[in-house]
Structures are given as C-alpha cells and as structure tokens.
C-alpha cells in the first residue's frame, strides 16, 4: 500500500488586489508552494458581491499544503490581516502522497 503522510491544507479567501500579501506570507512561512483558484461571487456581513471585476474588488482562494508547524506560522502571520480585510482562513488535515515535497 502506498505511503501517505498527514499535512495541513490551508485555504484563504482574499481580495485579488491583496493576493500578493497572502502569497508573500506563504513564501515567508517557508511553504513550498501555493495554488490560486478563482471565485465567482459570495455573500458575507457586507452583503453580496459579484461581478466585481469592474471595481477590482473580486476575490480568489489561495490553497496551500504544509506541515503542521509551518501552517501554524502562516496562520499567525495572517491573523491580523484577516480581521482587517475580512479574509477567511480555514485549515484541516489531509493525507498526501510524496509527503517529502511539502
């Protein structure tokens, strides 16, 4: 049977305009990589948003897989920004193959 290891999968919803802040934080936490997934629309405390491209306030998901400790570093680094900009961060355990690369 193939060997898997446990890592954290972290998912951050951020404004596109602020994407580089999040990815910089991922890089600084020493995590090997990240992937950006588009988002169509949403609703939160500030009401609905959609088709915000005209306003440059659209959002994306940043996904990254990291060992527990680095995930923790990232979460700590992002916590203040989260509150300020209304981002969302969630994380959970996943099994990955080729664990050595994360």
């Amino acid at each position, binding site marked *: 049977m193939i060997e898997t290891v446990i890592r954290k999968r972290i998912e951050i919803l951020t404004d596109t305009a602020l994407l580089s802040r999040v990815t910089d934080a991922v890089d600084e936490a020493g995590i090997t990589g990240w992937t950006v997934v588009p988002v169509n629309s949403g609703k939160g405390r*500030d*009401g609905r948003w959609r*088709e915000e*491209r*005209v*306003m*440059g*306030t659209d959002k994306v998901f940043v996904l990254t897989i990291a060992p527990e400790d680095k995930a923790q570093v990232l979460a700590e680094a992002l916590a203040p920004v989260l509150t300020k*900009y209304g981002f969302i961060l969630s994380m959970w355990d996943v099994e990955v193959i080729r664990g050595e690369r994360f």
Partner: protein
Amino acid sequence: MDAATLQTFTSPVVLFFVLGLLAAFARSDLAIPEAIAKGMSLYLMAAIGLKGGVAVSKSGVDSTVLIALALGIAASFLMPFLAYAVLKGFGKLERINAGAVAAHYGSVSVVTFVTAVEILEAQGKPPGGYMVAVMAAMETPAILTGLLLARGMGSKDGQKTGELLHEVFFNASVVLLLGAFAIGIIAGEEGFSEVTPFFEAGFKGVLCLFLLDMGLIAARRIMDARAITFRLVLIAIGLPLVNGAIGTAAAAACGLDVGSAAALGVLCASASYIAVPAAMRLALPEADPGIYLTMSLSITFPFNILINIGLISMLASALTGMPGGEGIAP
C-alpha cells in the same frame, strides 16, 4: 426636455444602458461574462487613448493643453475637500467613509467620459484629443486627498504608502490610457489608419454592450444595497451637478472650446468606480464598499449618463457662447 436631451435618449449607446437597468430590475438572468466585460473595457481604453494621441499628434501641444491639464489636476486634488465636508456634515458619514467616498468623486469615470465624448460629437461639439491625457491625470490626485482626509497627516506606514503609490500610478487603466495615448502620438494619423477599422469603427458598438453590462451591474448593486441613506442618495446626485457646473465654468473661463469645457465638466462630475475602489480596499480596508460603490456606480453613474451629460453640454454651450450642435438651438 429639449432636442439634445431627447437625442440622448434615442442614441443606441444610452438605450443599451437603459436596457441593462431594466433587465436587472426585472430580475432577468441576463449577464455579460466577466472576461468579456474586462476585454471590452481594455478595448475602450486603448481606443480612446489612441484616438486622443492621434488628435494631439495633429494639433500639437499648445498652452490650452497645459491649462486643461493644470485645471484637471487641481480639480482632482481639491474636489474631495468639498465632497468630504458635505459627506460628513449633511451625509453623516464618519471620517473614514467620508474620505473614501470623497476620493471617488474627485477622481473620474472613464466610461462616463467616453459616453460623453460620443454624445458631444453627435452634437457637433467634439472635445480636444488632449482631454484623454487630462482624464488620465485626474485619476490619481483625488486618491491622495481622500486618504489624507480619512487618515489625517500622520500616516506612518511607509512601506504600504509606497505600495499604494505604485498601485495608483501604475494601475491598469492609467498605464493603458497613457500608453495608448503615447502610441497614438508616435504612430500618428498614418500609422493609426492601419488599425482604424478595429479601434474606431467598432467603438460605439462595443460601448453599447459595455453600457448594457454597466446597467445590469449598477441596478443589481442598488437592489442589494443596505448602507445607503436618503441623504447619501441626494449627495450622489448633488455632487455631480455642482462639480460638473464648477468644472465646466472654470474650463470655459480659461478659454477651452465648448466640447473640451463640457468634457472637463463631465470629468469633474463623474465618480470613479474602478481605480479608486481598488485603491481604497488596499489603503482604507475599514471603509465600506457598500457605500462608496453604490453611490458612485449605482447613482452617480446613471445620473451622469442619462441626465447630467446633457445638462453640462448645454451649460458649456451657454458659457462659451458657442452653440456647437443642437444644444441650445431653437
């Protein structure tokens, strides 16, 4: 309603905007894909930039151009003060939101400008080509004033200010507008003629579909709006009236021709809903987009397109004493 205003309402460009408003209010699922809308907006900016540059390559740069630039930049810096006072006083907004909204009204809306140019040209009052450069120059000063008002002088975060200034001066629309403007000057009429069928012949049609989309977006946003009070609605209509009149009058006083004076008036009257909201998310995340976007996009923008451009055009004709088109003809 006189002839010029009526003519506005038989222009396909304006009619498509109205169609968008109506379709959204009827809760139709009509929607333009995001990528198409973005593509059209890039096209419109490239085309208007090119056209302006070619016009300047023909007419050359004289003192009028410099005066118009100076006027526009001054207006962009100063208009937020008036807006801020009204928003805080009459509008009852607190400091942060008042500053953010003020920045929007000091800056400009490219699509409002483009629509105004179409309407003015149809009325026989084409603005000077250099007005494109004026528009680009007016995009950013208001952001600085707005931030100053919102945060006071004591902004300490140097790193972020640098990031913001970069964002503001190299944002997509400024770069594309000024880049295309420069290309227009370099290529000149002859070089431009190669691409005329694309950038000139298609222009109005693309503008129709783009305004259809803007109508949809503006109406949908206002239907979802929550943070907007009746006082803010009044301000979102009053500010473009006042700013437009001041801008037109100042331009006419400085000797700009009727079309350019009207165009400057429209620039003053218009509120940004692209460059400035993005900058505000970066610099003033605490400000509420539900306020500034709804005011600029869903109230001021339609008001300018449907009514205020016509009014400003008439004012410009009256002030410059040059009827130009049917504006004040019997």
